[in-house]
């Protein structure tokens, strides 16, 4: 996965397709004065996440009447130097089971991702163009921009609060605003005006985010919880985003990690278009 893309700036999903486990090798506790806001975000961006990873997720979509829908999916990710390939396969519900998404994420920021979609109803693999990145991802409150990450150079960073205790952990609160020269591109890519992020001082992990959307007077609230170390890598096992409009909850999504395996052997064959349409794991 490229380090040039900011992890959990707007989410902690970063494999190119819901690799939510924004992760960190345990860091030495930091002192606020030692870092600028930009350096903290850079440290957050460069957190290690393993050379390969296999995730099993459940995504729960919650509407304003508290009606809940869920999707189960598996994501396989493998790094190739600074590039990364990921395969996402849906296990449920029944009407989308077998749907698969293959993505090649290139480190070169000028090179578009290569993406293919397999639809089981047609039993056909189809190359797809990148969607409007501010679109909802699979009906969730995450956007494609949240998941794919953004360019850190597009933003200015400043402290909102140099010490705030969240769930018993000391955090920096940093404001992230597009630089004037990148404002248009950043707003077009995300649909967001600005954000506040909460970064843990002990491991540079982002555990909260508050994002102001450009339209509709909407604010999104990201919360990471159920955090634990797996194979020496800090892993967020529950990520929640609540979309509010005029301070009322409009919709929410919860992404749970049911299982994760780091640094296992993943065959290159898994990241091919023909593998998407085969039933062999």
């Amino acid at each position, binding site marked *: 996965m490229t380090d040039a893309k900011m992890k959990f700036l707007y989410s902690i999903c970063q494999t190119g397709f819901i690799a939510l486990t924004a992760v960190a090798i345990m860091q030495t506790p930091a002192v606020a004065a030692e870092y600028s806001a930009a350096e903290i975000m850079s440290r957050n961006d460069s957190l290690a996440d393993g050379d390969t990873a296999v995730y*099993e997720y*459940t995504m*729960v*979509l*919650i*509407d304003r009447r*508290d*009606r*809940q*829908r869920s999707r*189960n999916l598996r994501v396989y990710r493998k790094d190739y130097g600074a590039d990364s390939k990921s395969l996402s396969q849906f296990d*449920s*519900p*029944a*009407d989308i*089971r077998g749907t698969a998404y293959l993505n090649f994420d290139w480190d070169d920021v000028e*090179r*578009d991702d*290569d993406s293919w979609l397999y*639809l089981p*109803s*047609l*039993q*056909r693999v*189809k*190359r*797809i*163009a*990148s*969607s*409007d990145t*501010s679109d*909802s991802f*699979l*009906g*969730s*409150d995450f956007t494609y921009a949240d998941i794919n990450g953004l360019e850190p150079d597009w933003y200015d960073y400043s402290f909102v609060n140099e010490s705030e205790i969240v769930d018993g952990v000391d955090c920096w609160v940093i404001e992230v605003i597009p630089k004037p020269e990148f404002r248009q591109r950043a707003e077009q890519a995300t649909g967001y005006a600005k954000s506040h992020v909460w970064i843990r001082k002990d491991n540079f992990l982002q555990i*909260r985010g508050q994002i102001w959307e450009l339209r509709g007077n909407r*604010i999104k*609230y990201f*919360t990471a919880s159920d955090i634990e170390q797996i194979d020496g890598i800090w892993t967020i096992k529950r990520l*929640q985003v*609540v979309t*509010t409009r*005029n*301070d*009322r*909850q409009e*919709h*929410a999504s*919860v992404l*749970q990690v*049911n299982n994760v395996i780091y640094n296992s052997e993943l065959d290159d*064959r898994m990241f*091919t278009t*023909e593998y998407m349409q*085969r*039933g*062999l*794991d």
Partner: protein
Amino acid sequence: MTRFPAQIVNQSPHHRILLLACFVGIVSFAFEAVAQNDFFSNLDLQRDNTLTSNRDWQLLGWVTEKVAYGYESPGQGFSRQDAGFNKVETSLFAQLDWQPADNLGFRVSAKSYHDLVYRLDHDTPWSQAERRKLRNRHEVRDLYIESQLTEGLYLRFGNQIVAWGMAEYLRVTDVINVEDQLTLGQQDLEDFRLQVPALLLGFRSGQWLFESVLTHRAGTDDLAPSGHEFDQLIELRSSGLHINRHPPGDHLEYFFRASTHYSRGDVQLVAGEFNHNQLTPAGIQTLADKSTLLHLNQQRMQMLGAAANFVAGSWLLFGETGIHFDRPVVPDNRNAIVNSANWQERNQWLTATGAEFNGFSNTTLALELDSLRILDHRDTRTASRQQASLGTRINWSGWNDRLKILGVWNYLFDGRGYVTRFSLDYTVSDQLSIGAMWVDYSADDNSILYNFRNNDVIQLQLRYSFQH
């Protein structure tokens, strides 16, 4: 989600009284106005949504109920001659996947239908038993075994779909599977292609994937039976012809594809020798009783084709082209189907070019321009040397993917007709969805669609999905 407003409990006693007073009168306002920070608290999930097991088998399926109303009169010859319900259909689809080993898998799927008002009651020669059989259809869909034999070699054997090519409206290289043409333009996605018995071998070498497919007794497109409002042979039947369908001379079909991808694009090269998936007239015979017998068969053809696509930002551009050798030439109008007892075979050059745009919020726009050129075109009774058709599509999803809207407009090759389809689907829950569809047919009297111009329909649908 019920959330206790955190800021209330942090107020002084005096403020608490005031706030509680407000709380009684404007509960919801108070909750929402002061609860901002509480949006970080964990939401309650209603049930355990996680995967419960990693079984080596999976069963899924759905039960679908469709009610369709044809609001025009199809006319003489059809079993439904007036406006009325033309479908009250219950169908069950089930699919079982079993993977006993890492490199071995099986799939079996089947679909059963029961149509309460199948329109074969009037003016048709069917017996009660035959009508019952037509009303209750049972189809085996997938039935195959697959295996990764070696590092690069893959095999799939059995009833299966092998969908190649990139075009949506014109079958240039996507010719392995037959189609469900029982209700033209009204099929579900999973019914566009029908499975055929085949052996697929795939071999990857570096960036290239080589695939060969051998089919046996693949059959023809699934046509509507006599009297059905999409009976494509109804004109022949109404003219008094008897129809005799002949099996192809060679039941084996061969296909080969080499494909690769490069940055932002894919390339496919395809070749094949196969039987045309449509029946075409091969000769007429006058019988002893003076009646006429029309022989239909599947023309043997060869095909060479290529397809490529390219992504530029939110645009996907694609093209597919190929030559079909000895492809039957469709006569220039409906009467010629009867008059021209032996359709000509000509080499034909088929091309599809198109673009898809994803740049608007939650919307996909697609446009495809297709062309067919008859090489060595000699007979003026046949269709034009150069023909073109157009397909457009718009997809939109909203309300967190609960609502999906699809619009399709397809201008046909003969230039004298088009099909418009508009559908809405709303997901009520993970198991339940409801939908509505409108299909409109328009054709002048020389169009191949002419007989079906009054089959416009409105359909309501309910689907319940299950999975274990």
